[in-house]
Structures are given as C-alpha cells and as structure tokens.
C-alpha cells in the first residue's frame, strides 16, 4: 500500500512539476502576479510529493519488502539496517529517485530562502528547475520505476553488491548528487537571466551561495569517493582517472571556475557572459556525469548500473536541457551589456586566468575521457587513456594555476601591481624554495619532481598565510589588534584562506603519495614477517571469522618499528555467499604523515598467504586538504552578506517582457 502511495505521489509530483514549469514562466512574461506567485507553493508541493515517494522506497527497504523488484534485487534480510537504507541509492532506480528528491529539496530551498529575489526572477528560476524535474520524473516513471512489483515475491532478496556495503560509500552518492543537483540552481539562475536579458551584481550575489553550497557538497563527495576507492579496492591507489571519477571531477573544475568568476560579476560587474556560460556548462557536465554512469557508454568499475535504453532517454534530457540553454545563450548573450573594464594584471585578470586554466584542465579531462569513445565511433578501435595521458596534460596546466593562485589574492581590483605583490611574497618564495631544496637533499636527486611538487604546495600555503597575515596586520601591530581584525574579517575571506590552504595540503599529499609510495607483495606463512619502508609487518596467523552476512578470512598482523609493536592490524577477505562475491577489507594504520596499508590475499600452493603491503606517505593529507577546502566553502557560505543586507537591484526600467529587440 505504501509503495502504491509512493508511486502515485511521484505521478502527482510530475503533474505539479509540469504546472511549475509552465505557468510561472507565462506569468513572468505577462506580468501576471497570480501566475508568478504559483511558483513557490508548487516547489513546496513538489518536495512534499517527491519526498513521499522517496520515503516510501526507504520504507520498503527498511522492512525488506521483496514484492518490489528493486528491493528484491538489491537487498536481503540479513543486511544490517544501515546498508538496507543506503541500498536505496546503490542501484539505478533508487539513485535516480534520490536525484529528483535532492532537486526538489533545492527547489523548495529557493522558494523558502529566495524571499529577497525579485518575484519574476524567482518564478523563472523555479520554472526552469521544474523543467529539469519534469524530465527526470518522466525518466523515472517510464524507464526506471523503483516501485515496479515482482510477482511472486521471493522470500529473500538477491543482496547488495558487497563492494557497495561500506560506510564511506553509503554517503558518497548523496554528497555527489547534492553537488551535481546543486549546480542545477546556478544553471536555472543562468537560464532565467538569459530569459530576462539582464545579469548584474545582484544576480551574482544571489547565485553565489547556491554555487558555493553545491561546490562544498561536490568537493566532499569526490573526496569520499576517492577515499572509498583507496580503502576498499585494495590497490593502495586513490585516483584512477576512471571515466566515472572524471565525470564527477569535470563539474568540479568548471564549478570552481564558476565560483571565482561569479565573484568578478558581483564585485566588478564584469565577465558576465562568461559566467553565464560557466553556469550552464557546470550543470551540463553534471548531467553528462550522470549519463556516463547510467548509460554504459564508457566502461569502468562503476558499470554495475548501466543500461543503454535509459542512456537514450538521458541523452535526450541532456540534449534538451543543455542544447536549449546553449541556444538561448547564443541568441541572448550578445545583447548582455558588458561591464567594468580591467587591466590584465589585476584581481579580475587573476580570476580570469584561473578560469581559463581550470576550463582548459577540464577540457583535457573531457578529451581523455571521451577520446576512446570518439575513436570507437569513428574508426572502431578500442583504446584506453590512462594516467600517463593526464600526467602529461593535466599536471602541466595545474602548475601555472597553483603558482598564480598564490599571487592572485595579492592583486588589487582593476589594476594590480605584480611586482609589488611578488615583493610582499618574498618570504613565502624563499621558504618554498628552501622546502624544495631540503626535499632534494633529504630524498636524493631523483626526487626532482617531488621537490617541485612540495615546493609548489609550500608556496601556495605560505602565500595564502601571508595574504591572511597582511589582512589582519599580523606582527605589524600588537597581537590583540590582529586578533580583533581576524575576528572581524569577513567569513568569505576566511573561506578563501582555508580553501586555498586546503588545496596546498592536497597538493602535498598527492606529491608525497605519488613519489614515495612503497609496495611489497609477498607470500607469507604464519610466523613470518616482511620489511616495509623501515617497518616490519609480522603475520601471526590467519583464521576464519563469521560476519553479519559474510564469512571472513582474517589475518592477525603486527606492525613493528625497531622491534617494538606499534599496532595490530586485521585485514580481511570477505566472502558473501548470497551475492557470491568476495570483498577485501583493507587494514590501514595511519599516523597522519603516512599510511601503512595491508591487504590479505589468497592462500597459495605452499600454504602461505599473499600479503600486499603499501607504505603511502602523505596520503592522509589528500583528504585532510579536501576537508579543509570544503570547510572553507562552508565558512564562506556562512558570510553574513549571503544572509542579511538583501541586495537590491538598482532601479532600472524593466526590459520589455516579450523578445528583446536585437540591438
């Protein structure tokens, strides 16, 4: 019964979305207040009904209602409740429902918090958002119904892919979707602005918090995904340039560019056309990300949820959404007024450079991801593009970006003085150079690349700190005064400092783990031990341990340094009889400077066990840095400018409601 209510609620939500997508738009064009006012309650009602649908499915999973195909194929009785619930989005149908649920949450959030928006703009934003909702609800109801029944209902379900039964992965998709779908708001604002034919600083100020929120979620989501692949796949790596990883990374790159160019629109009324384009592209890449995962166009480890028939539908959705937005852009963009002018060396110029480099970086990732597909389509040849491609293309683009990232915040708006900025950074430069030299001295001449990497990370971190120190006049006046200044510093400034510092920490982590990881693979008998980068790993024994819905082969390892025990580690190999799959449970011991990473493998002919051991220096910094970046975003989001002092548009005659005359 609850399932039918859920299904019916989705149908109702579709109807409401259709109304929300059309009438407020007509109302905004004809200036009919009644139709304009429809947008807000419609958005709330959509949230209500999609919420009913979503929680009905959650309920079905919680009570193991195997009369639903979706539950029967993706859950089982023995599963812990947490994985029953997260099983909702472990599969295609459920994850699409989560997608529209988050879309509805964002729509309702605009309706609730968008009180300071001009009613016509709000109506248009919500209408465009409802169009996306209509598309995805149609997609769910016609190709991916999570409430499809199974007759007769089986006694137990087929279970959940063991690789997905993990705490980290449980919350990775919702975070990622919060990011993907959050960018839909920036997209809707962009399309609404194109319809209205005006982009001004007030518009940028309304868009920024939404972009920022989506960016924080996406940053967290990507970091979680990478962390998950690090500790579950058992290969000691944390990024594989897998098409699906790239699919989430591309919107992040363009979203980061958008975040920065929106600042220019807000502060200087410039780069408007560009910002609109970025907003459209960010969400389009999010849609393409969804498409790449769902269609099976590109094979990857994520292929467990692919189906080409659905691919055609999503492709159609992307074609209409992005294609429509880009056509509107092509027609309307030339009529957008240009804004403030600026010299090439200026804060605006720095942010523009950031944008160009990030966009180019995204283009290389897009090329690397799609090149195999293009080649397959054109000359029917299968190739795969791997890490060497990205090392040769992506990394060289990132280096100038990181170098410039340290200087940009030091430049003033309109016209900056590069020489003066560099002079203010001389200590940062000297210390960064010292870091690079010290790295070479300690680790040997072969560490040239790593020395550069750590040098760049130090440069970025120190320059960021220097910029902050200047703002609070650290050491230039008594400490108390500096502290008072720090407390009064806008949250947005704090956010930037934290996020940029986080980036520096990530770079250090990437450098350390790429340059100095040590791998040992050995067949070890109980009682024997292996040396690894100054540590000793002793295998005491291996025994079988029953788990909730699996049987595990568990190794008792001791980690020793200079004969002294530091930790006990217990990697497992789990066999899931119901799903007939195995899953490794990696044991990781970290001291925040380096990880010791242990995987137990098969028993070999001689009675030994294959142990895979890794020493991964600085790896934890990758996630610490990412967390710092997301925190920076959140701090910036809490800036009071986003909450109070509702930006008022300068009084200006409203543009003609119908089509804008060309010039």
């Amino acid at each position, binding site marked *: 019964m609850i399932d039918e209510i859920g299904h019916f609620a989705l149908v109702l939500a579709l109807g409401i979305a259709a109304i929300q997508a059309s009438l407020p738009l007509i109302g905004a064009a004809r200036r009919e207040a009644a139709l304009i006012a429809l947008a807000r309650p419609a958005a709330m009602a959509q949230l209500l009904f999609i919420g009913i649908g979503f929680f009905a499915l959650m309920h079905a999973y919680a009570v193991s209602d195997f009369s639903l195909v979706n539950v029967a194929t993706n859950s089982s009785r023995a599963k812990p409740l947490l994985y029953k619930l997260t099983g909702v989005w472990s599969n295609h149908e459920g994850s699409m429902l989560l997608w529209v649920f988050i879309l509805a949450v964002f729509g309702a959030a605009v309706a609730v918090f968008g009180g300071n928006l001009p009613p016509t703009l709000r109506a248009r934003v919500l209408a465009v958002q409802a169009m996306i909702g209509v598309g995805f609800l149609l997609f769910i109801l016609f190709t991916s119904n999570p409430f499809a029944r199974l007759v007769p209902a089986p006694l137990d379900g087929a279970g959940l892919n063991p690789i997905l039964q993990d705490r980290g992965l449980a919350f990775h998709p919702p975070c990622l979707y919060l990011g993907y779908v959050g960018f839909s708001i920036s997209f809707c604002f962009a399309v609404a602005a194109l319809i209205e034919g005006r982009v001004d600083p007030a518009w940028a100020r309304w868009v920024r918090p939404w972009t920022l929120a989506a960016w924080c979620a996406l940053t967290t989501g990507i970091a979680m995904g990478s962390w998950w692949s690090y500790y579950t796949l058992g290969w000691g790596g944390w990024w594989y340039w897998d098409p699906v990883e790239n699919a989430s990374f591309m919107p992040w790159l363009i979203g980061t560019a958008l975040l920065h160019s929106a600042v220019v629109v807000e502060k200087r009324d410039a780069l408007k056309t560009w910002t609109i384009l970025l907003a459209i592209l960010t969400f389009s890449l999010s849609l393409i990300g969804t498409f790449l995962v769902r*269609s099976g*166009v590109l094979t990857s480890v994520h292929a467990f949820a692919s189906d080409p028939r659905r691919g055609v539908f999503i*492709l159609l959705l992307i074609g209409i959404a992005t*294609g429509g937005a880009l056509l509107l852009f092509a027609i309307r963009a030339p009529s957008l007024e240009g804004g403030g002018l600026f010299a090439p060396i200026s804060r605006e110029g720095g942010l523009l450079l950031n944008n160009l480099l990030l966009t180019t970086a995204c283009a290389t990732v897009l090329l690397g991801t*799609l090149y195999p*597909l293009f080649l*397959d389509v054109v000359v029917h040849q299968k190739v795969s593009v791997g890490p060497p491609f990205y090392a040769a293309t992506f990394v060289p683009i990132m280096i100038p970006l990181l170098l410039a990232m340290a200087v940009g915040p030091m430049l003033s708006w309109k016209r900056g003085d590069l020489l003066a900025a560099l002079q203010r950074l001389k200590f940062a430069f000297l210390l960064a150079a010292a870091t690079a030299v010290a790295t070479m001295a300690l680790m040997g001449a072969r560490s040239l690349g790593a020395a550069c990497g750590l040098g760049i990370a130090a440069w970025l971190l120190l320059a960021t700190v220097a910029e902050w120190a200047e703002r609070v006049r650290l050491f230039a006046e008594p400490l108390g005064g500096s502290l008072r200044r720090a407390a009064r510093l806008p949250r947005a400034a704090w956010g930037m400092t934290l996020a940029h510092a986080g980036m520096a920490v990530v770079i250090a982590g990437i450098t350390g783990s790429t340059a100095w990881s040590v791998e040992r693979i050995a067949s070890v008998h109980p009682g024997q031990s292996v040396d690894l980068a100054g540590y000793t790993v002793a295998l005491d024994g291996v025994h079988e341990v029953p788990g909730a819905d699996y049987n595990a082969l568990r190794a008792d390892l001791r980690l020793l340094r200079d004969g002294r025990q530091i930790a006990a580690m217990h990697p497992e190999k789990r066999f899931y009889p119901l799903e007939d799959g195995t899953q490794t449970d990696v044991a990781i011991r970290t001291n925040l400077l380096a990880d010791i990473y242990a995987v137990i493998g*098969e028993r070999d002919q001689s009675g030994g066990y294959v142990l895979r051991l890794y020493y991964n220096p600085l790896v934890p910094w990758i996630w610490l840095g990412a967390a710092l970046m997301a925190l920076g975003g959140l701090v910036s989001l809490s800036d009071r400018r986003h909450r109070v002092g509702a930006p008022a548009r300068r009084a200006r005659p409203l543009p003609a409601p119908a089509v804008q005359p060309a010039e």
Partner: protein
Amino acid sequence: MTMRRWLVWLPALGFALLIAAFYMGLGIDATALPSALIDEPAPSFQLPPLPGHQHGFSTADLKGHVSLVNTFASWCAPCREEHPTLTALAEQKRVPIYGINYKDKPDAATAWLQSLGDPYDRVGADDGRVGIDWGVYGVPETFVVDRAGRIRYKHVGPLTPQDVNRTILPLVTRLER
C-alpha cells in the same frame, strides 16, 4: 561585436557534436574487446591434465571441428557465475568445450569440477604461459575456434545464456557450414 556574435554559437555547436558522438556510442558494446588473435591460428601449446583426468589439452585437439575454448579458475568468482551456462551448453552436446585452467592450483581445480560438474571435453592446466599466448588477461574468457584451428571470436567475462544463444551458437552454426 560580429566576432562575438559568431563565438557565442561555438558552445552549442561543440555540444551538438558531443551529443552525436554519445548517441553513436550508445550502439557500441563497450565490453566487446577485440583480440589481436582474431582470425589467427590458435597458438600451439601442450597442457598437462589436471589430477584425476586422463587427457591434457593441446593444439592437436582443436583440428577438424568447431570448438569453444574457455579459460577458468577455481579462484575466479565470475567463473562460478558462468559455470551453469557452460554446463547447460555441454549437456546439449552441440559443440565440444575445452578448458584452460588458468593459474590455478590443480587440486583446487579438480575439486571445483567435481563439486560443480565438469562441462569440459578436455582440460589442460596452465601456469599462465599458454594463457598469455592466447591473449588472456582475465578469466573467464571464451574463444570460438573454427575447423582449421583459427580463433574466430573472443568473449570476455562470464557467458550468459543470452550470449550463448544469440552469439556463440549462431557463430558455431555458421562456421560448421
């Protein structure tokens, strides 16, 4: 201004190309991997039998009839998944199935075949070298070999009944003609 008017159409144009490529990409089976050995004679090899089996498996066995060559291992979960399909195919006695037991412990392989059933007409134990000659890079993989002993088709991953009925058996019929 005219330049800009032209430039703003670029994103839409680029996007149209992208969508076209995606659409064409949808029709392609991304899991169908070509083998460099397609239409080449099968490599020559001689594999010893598994414990408890009389015959090994060698190149000579492939001559004169169309056959399937399947790589498997007892440690491989997808092989377990594929096994019922192979057993059902073997019961039809439509085409001989040969097995290359890839990088496995011989005793474990024998035990595996005893407990799950043995669909193979002949099985050879391979420590990995013959697999390399066949271009194997994961198990299970299934090859269709024609009368002349040439490899004509390669399937990567577990066979499903659909694969057998839609691809493998029609190909076998065609090759036997």
